[in-house]
Structures are given as C-alpha cells and as structure tokens.
C-alpha cells in the first residue's frame, strides 16, 4: 500500500471552509457578548452567510469541477442551490430575532446551530459520494434536533425534538442500509462510478439492487416528507418554536432536493425506470394526503406542514419525469417554494408577541383591519402556494406540469391539478380569515414592527410576484444546471 497522498484542490470547497471558520468565530465571539449586545451575533451570522455567498460566486466554475477524489463536486446546480440556501437562511435569521427576544431565547447558540445546519446543507449539495452525503445530512439533522429543543421551557418543543430525533435516526438508518447494500454490490461509494458499476452488475443482481434502491428511496422520502413517510412533519412543524419551524420549512427542502438529485439522478440513473415508478406512487399519495388533510387543520403551522407535503408531491413529479426539463422545473419549484414559505412563516413570526403565540388560523382574523401590509404579504404567499397567477407558484406548477405532460403522463398532470384545486380551498380560507373576518379582541394590540423585518418581508413577498412575472432568469439557471 503505497498510495500517494494527493493534495486535493481546496478551492471548490472554499465556501464551506469560510462557513466553518466563521461559524467557529461566531461561537467564540458570542461567548464574550453581554445579552444586550446579542444583535452583534446576528450581524456576524448574516455576514458569514453573505461571505459564503460571495465565496460561492467567486469560485463558481464554468464547467463542473470535482475535488477530494471525486467525492466533492462544484457544478452549476451546486452554485445555484448553495446561494439559495444561504439567502433563505439570512431571511430566517433576521425574521426570527424578535420572536427569540420575546421568548427569552435570544442566544447566540441559535445562530451557531443555524450556521452549522447551513454548512451541512452546503455539504449535502456538493456531495458526490455516499459518505459525504450522509455526513452533510447528519450535520444538518443534529443541528436541527438541537435547535428544536432549544427552548428548554417548552414541553412541546422537547417532545418535537425527541420525535424528530427518533424518526430522523430511523430514516438515516434506512438510508445507510440502502447505501451499504449498494456498496456490497458495487464496491464503491463514489457516485461517479456507481452508474457504471450498476450497469455491469444489473444482470447479476437485479433483486438486490431493487432492494437497495427501495431503502434509498424510503430514506429520502422520510427526509423530504413524502407520504407515507410524512408523519413526523406535522408534529414537528407544530411543536417547534415558530422560528425553528421557519428554518425547517425552508432551506432544508433545497438540500433535500439536492440529495434526491445526487442520489437518484447522478448515482442511480441506471435504475431510473424503477425509481420513477416508486416516486409516482409517492407523489400521488403526497398530493392526495397533503391536500386533503390540510383542509381539516385549524393550526396554521400544522396546515402549512400538510401543504409542504403536497408541495413535495409536486417536486417529486418534476423528478420522476426524468428529463432535464423535469429536473430543472423541480429545482425551480423547490427554490421558489422555500422563498414562499419563508414569507408565510415570517408573517406568522411577526404576529407573535410576548405572551401571545400566533399559531391558529383564527389568530389571523381580521389582519387586514389591524395591519393591511402584513395581510397583503401573507395573501400573496397563500396565492403563490395555491399556484394562482401572477405569483411565482403558478409558474413553478406550470413548468412541472409541462415536464410531466412532456413525457406523456397527461393523466398524472390532470390528477395533480385536481388536487391543487383542493389545495386552493385551504389557502383561500387563510385569505378569508384575514380579509373577511373581524379581528379578535386580543388581536387589537398593535404589532411590534421592526423596520428591517418589515422591509425585508415586503421585498421577500413582492419577489413572489416579480419572480412570477419574470421567471426567465432563475429558470435559465435551473435549466443550465441540468444541461
């Protein structure tokens, strides 16, 4: 064994290294800050993400480059997804501030954990070997478990963290089991070599490969929250502090999408026919269960959890169509969904005040009377989730449907649009509560307004309309990622 140690090219991983160094810096600096200067930690955390974005832009290659023996790849897909992840995380950090202050959990650890989670997501996005995918996934998950349990005084948060931990560990186990079978058959963890190995081995081990694929898909569905592996999602969304729900509901979806692409498309493209069928069943079930059960919810966070499940169904539709168009549209859908749900949870966070936890849909009653600005922002987000033009949600749905019809699955498209009509009902109910109902008595206290949150949330929400009217640029990047 005289394998020479080859110095890997570190440049492609520069954003991750910046993140890691800066996160450690945040951790240390925060220790020496008095509570009233906590704002500096936030500033530093945002600066970290901005630096990471700058680093991504700086190292962005024209053609895909890989490093660390092929286990780390930086391509167009990774660049776009990393930037989106960081942008969404910035939004999350800023929206959360007032909520954290009100609940006496305004601590630096929130940001440190959030940054580590973001780092995990960035690793997942660039990972091109089973091991690295798993590493990124666990870094993300462990940070999230801690973030949920962060509010020690809240019983429901501890319960959620426990649930998430147990179920998440199980999902990771399933994923690992699938990976180990693949390793057993192909003797490689490298995603680049996997395809070639599978095509060689396919004739010999069709059953074992199908078996392993099933475990991978199940593990993936757990992480994405596709039916029937969705049960954790509503409980965790509802039980977590809203600031953490905001985080779970946005950026990790992008990382989950990246994981699906890396595993299924890059790695297991040879088994496409099999996983397309599995994803078809999962997508239909997600669309049906997500949309129908959301109707019965009275808790806004829980309703959004079920709505997430239905959106995952749409993302799966794009992936299962197994065309460059389909992947690009699923990517577009994922990114815009993350942006949309950051508006929805962001508005909910703003409505929270000391001693008043806005959680129920009825808590939004008459929001148009008490605060037309936030009512309008949330209404735009709701219409976007429902896919009503001219918001971006419509264009996202259109592109996914186009991909599905493009591979001659018109019936699936019809099914998807019918379920989205059902979905429309519960989004409209939120608008109805805000605009048509009268405010509740406890609602009359004025909302504390921080100007930066107000403006950022406004820009975030208006971006849904702007992206809906001019989706070309983002769509072009998504298509470029798969060309």
């Amino acid at each position: 064994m005289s394998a020479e140690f080859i110095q890997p090219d570190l440049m492609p991983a520069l954003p991750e290294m910046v993140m890691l160094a800066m996160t450690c810096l945040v951790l240390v600096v925060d220790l020496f800050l008095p509570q009233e200067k906590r704002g500096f930690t936030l500033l530093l955390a945002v600066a970290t993400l901005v630096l990471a974005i700058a680093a991504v832009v700086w190292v962005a290659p024209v053609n895909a480059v890989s490093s660390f023996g092929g286990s780390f790849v930086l391509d167009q897909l990774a660049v776009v997804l990393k930037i989106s992840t960081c942008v969404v995380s910035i939004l999350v950090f800023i929206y959360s501030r007032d909520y954290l202050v009100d609940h006496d959990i305004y601590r630096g650890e929130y940001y440190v954990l959030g940054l580590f989670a973001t780092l995990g997501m960035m690793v997942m996005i660039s990972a091109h070997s089973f091991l690295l995918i798993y590493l990124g996934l666990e870094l993300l998950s462990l940070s999230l478990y801690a973030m949920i349990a962060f509010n020690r005084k809240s019983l429901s948060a501890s319960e959620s963290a426990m649930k998430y931990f147990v179920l998440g560990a199980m999902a990771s186990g399933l994923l690992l089991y699938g990976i180990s079978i693949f390793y057993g058959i192909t003797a490689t963890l490298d995603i680049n070599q996997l395809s070639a190995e599978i095509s060689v081995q396919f004739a010999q081990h069709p059953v074992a490969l199908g078996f392993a694929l099933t475990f991978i898909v199940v593990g993936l569905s757990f992480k994405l929250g596709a039916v029937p592996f969705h049960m954790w999602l509503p409980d965790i969304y509802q039980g977590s502090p809203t600031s953490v729900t905001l985080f779970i509901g946005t950026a990790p979806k992008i990382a989950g999408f990246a994981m699906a692409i890396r595993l299924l498309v890059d790695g297991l493209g040879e088994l496409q026919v099999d996983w397309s069928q599995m994803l078809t069943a999962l997508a239909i079930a997600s669309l049906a269960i997500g949309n129908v059960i959301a109707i019965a919810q009275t808790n806004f966070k829980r309703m959004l959890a079920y709505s997430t499940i239905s959106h995952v169904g749409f993302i799966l539709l794009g992936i299962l169509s197994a065309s460059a168009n389909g992947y690009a549209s699923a990517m577009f859908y994922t990114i815009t969904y993350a942006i949309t749900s950051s508006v929805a949870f962001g508005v909910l966070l703003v409505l929270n005040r000391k001693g008043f936890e806005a959680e129920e849909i009825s808590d939004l009653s008459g929001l148009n009377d008490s605060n037309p600005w936030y009512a309008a922002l949330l209404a735009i987000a709701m219409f976007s989730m429902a896919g009503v033009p001219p918001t971006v949600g419509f264009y996202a749905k259109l592109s996914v449907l186009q991909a599905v019809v493009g591979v001659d699955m018109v019936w699936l498209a019809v099914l998807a649009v019918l379920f989205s009509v059902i979905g429309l009902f519960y989004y409209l109910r939120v608008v109805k509560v805000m605009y048509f109902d009268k405010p509740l008595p406890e609602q009359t206290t004025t909302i504390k307004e921080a100007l930066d949150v107000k403006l950022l949330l406004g820009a975030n929400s208006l971006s849904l309309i702007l992206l809906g009217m001019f989706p070309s640029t983002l769509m072009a990047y998504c298509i470029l990622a798969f060309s």
Partner: protein
Amino acid sequence: MYADWPLLSLVIWTPILGGILVLFAGDKEPAGARKIALVVSIATFLLTLPLYTQFNTETHLMQFVERQPWIDAFDIEYYLGVDGISMPLILLTSFTTVIVIISAWEVIQYRASQYMAAFLIMEGFMIGTFSALDAVLFYIFFEAMLIPMFLVIGVWGGANRIYATLKFFLYTFIGSVLMLVALIYMYNQAGSFAIFDFHHLRLSLTEQVLIFLAMLVAFAVKVPMWPVHTWLPDAHVEAPTGGSVILAAIMLKIGGYGFLRFSLPITPDASAELDWLIITMSLTAVVYIGFVALVQRDMKKLIAYSSIAHMGFVTLGFFIVFRIVNSGFGDQGAALALEGGMVQMVSHGFISGALFLCVGVMYDRMHSRQIADYGGVVNTMPVFAAFMVFFAMANAGLPGTSGFVGEFMVILASFKASFWIAFLAALTLILGAAYTLWMIKRVVFGDVANDNVAALSDINRREFLFLAILALAVLGLGLWPDPLVEVMHPTIDNLLNHIANSKI
C-alpha cells in the same frame, strides 16, 4: 399618431398601476382615492377609444400587435393584439369600469380605496385576457382576475358572502386548471404557446374531443352554462353592486370569448361532433332557467338567472353554425349566428349591468332585495322608474333596444338549422318578458306598498348620470348596431373559413 404607441399595453397597465396607486393613497384620504380612481378609469376608457377609431375593418388579421419574448425557457411570449371579436369587448370593459367607479362613489364607505383599487386592477386583467394572444398570458390574466373579484365579494358582499365567494373562486379555478393541462399538451405538440400556432395544429379526433372537453369545462363555468351555473346566483346575490355589474357585464363574456378564440378554431371537428351537447345545454339554459327566473323572490337572483338564460343565446349562436352549414345555408347564415352571439354579449353587458345598478340604487335606500318589500316605487321615484322599466324592456328583448338585435339574429339563424331549435330559443321572448315584466309590475307599479317605499327619494345627479349613459348605449346599439357588426365581419368570416376545414 397612435400608430407606434403600445396601445394595448397602455390600456392593460394604466389601470393596474393606477389601482396600486389608489391602494397606497389609502383609506385616510378616501376622497382622494376616489378621484384618482375616476381619473384613471376615464383615462383608460379614452385610451381604448383609438382601438375603435383606428381599427381597420378590412382585415381579419390581428391589429395593434405587440410581440416580445417573455419566458424563453418555454417560448412564452408577451403577445398582444385585437381583432373584431376582442376589440368591442375591451371597449365594453373600460366603459363598464367607469360606470362602476361612479356608481360606488358615496355608496362604498368601508375601505373605499381598496374597493376602487380592486376594480381598476381587475379591469387591467380583463382587458389583458381579451387581448392576449399567447395561451399562458391569457391564462395568467384569466386566473389573476379571480383574486380581486374574490376579495370584492368577500369584503363588501352581503350576509352569506363567504360561502358565495369561495364557491365562485373554486368553481372557476377547477374549470380552468383542466384547460391549463390542455394548453400544455398543445404546447408540446406545437412548440409554442401562441394561440395561432394552436389554430394550425393537426389533432386527431380523440385528442380534439379531450381538449374540447377540458376547455368546455373552463369556459362553461365562466359563461356560465347549465348545469355548472350554480355559483352565479350566489355570487351575484352576495356581491356588492359593482361586483355584480362587472361579473355580469364582463366576466361572463370571457367564457363566450374563450369559445370563439380557443374551442371553435382549435378543435373544429370536436366542436362539430359535440355541438348537440352545447346546443342542449344552451336550450336548457334558455327554457329551464327562464322558468327558474320566474319564481325568484330576490331581484338580484332573478337578474342572475336571466343572465344565464341570455348567455344561453350566446353559446347557442356560436355552436349552431355547424348545423346551419350542414343544412346548406352556407356561410352567410352561420355568420349571422356568430355575429348574433357577439351582439348579444355586448348588449347583455349593458343591460344586465344597468339592471344590477338599478337594484343597487334601490338597495342603497331600502337595504332589501326582496321583491315583496317593494311595490309602487314609481310613485316616489318616477325618474328612476322610467329607467328601470326601460332596461327591463330591453332585457325582455323589445325591438329598438340592443336586447332585441342579438336575440333576433340568433333566432333567425337557428331557423336555418332546425325549426325546433329556433322554436325553443324563441320561447325566451315569452319567458324573458314574463319574468322581467312581472318583477317590474310587482316592484315598480301598483300602490305604494309600505312606509319604507313611501319614504324613498328619487335618484340624484350621480345616479342619473350613469343610468342615462347606459340607457343611451342600449338604445344606440338597438337602433343602429352596424358600427358593432361591421368591425367583426372580417374576423367572423375568417373564423368560419377556419372551422370549415377539418384539422384531422
């Protein structure tokens, strides 16, 4: 001087941007918001006038065309243009919006700026729907206009408004999503979303039938045709006056317009194959809904049902053409039917809008729409009664009013197809007169029914203004429909040529 103006973009975006401006003017200064809204709506109306005066009546080609690439990924274009079918409807839209803004002047006190803004933004979306020549652009406008209407009914509507507005939104949405799938399917065949590329697409009969049915759901809900009409009476009854006017005068026309722009030219073979379905649905609307209207106790509901019956004439006129051609009467009879349907659309826009405004005028004073609460209104409101009787006569199809022209053309054309179809269609002359005049008898004439009616005051100058404008429009179109019929001649002829060729 208008030749190089992007006129259509102007008439779409002026009201939308104006609406946003009104929104930001806010409720603190409702008077200012009203004035801005009025100025914007009048400006938009004036901007639409050159569409008529500069219109070339010699050609069926699209005019005032604007074409820009928009979303390259899917070849979606910002592609606008008007022909003889869409141009009159755009004028109708901008005209009606001015009337609605005036009619809401003092009546709407709660969040007046949001109310005005909703109607202006809706106007932009509706004009966009009529002028879009790209299917996705059309769909975006088609759907987007639901949002302001949803809010208008839900915020300013009557007691049962939430049920009505949710029903309205869900009904229309479920119809249109199927159309979206059909549009995407055709995009995959044609490689572009331009509606004219769809027109030249070769499709097998099965494909055509499925596409036709998908679009039928979308447009039939919008028209609305029996049996998917049930959202309309609810929406009309609960909507504020302005909402009812826009719904009846313009939104319903988008369904009819869709048949002409999409169904007939894209799927002519399926349309010919399934014309019995549409004719049956239309005649049911005319006859059965006519009877339903007869027994209504709520004035708005009665007018809503009368709208469904009148729109039945429109769809009958559009789809009877295949039978006329087959009976050997050739294109002239068919053109009569199509033009009759179009005239009926425009005329119904005026008349139903005016009737809803009349009910609104009474409702503002009495806060009741029940026929039984009224009686002898003519004694206390003579000027108003004159207007209301006039519009009711027009609704019943009195010769000399616009209501007569369209109905007469469609019935005349129907005779060339089949006596029985024409006979059933002609029943409307009796039924329409029965339900409208009976309502007039109970509401307007007779002795003063109660103290509330006795305390009524006649219409003020503002109300006189918008009723008089509408009365002139109804009368003008009734006596001299030529200016309207002329502009659509070449377009209709071209459409007939188009649907005569099989696309299989």
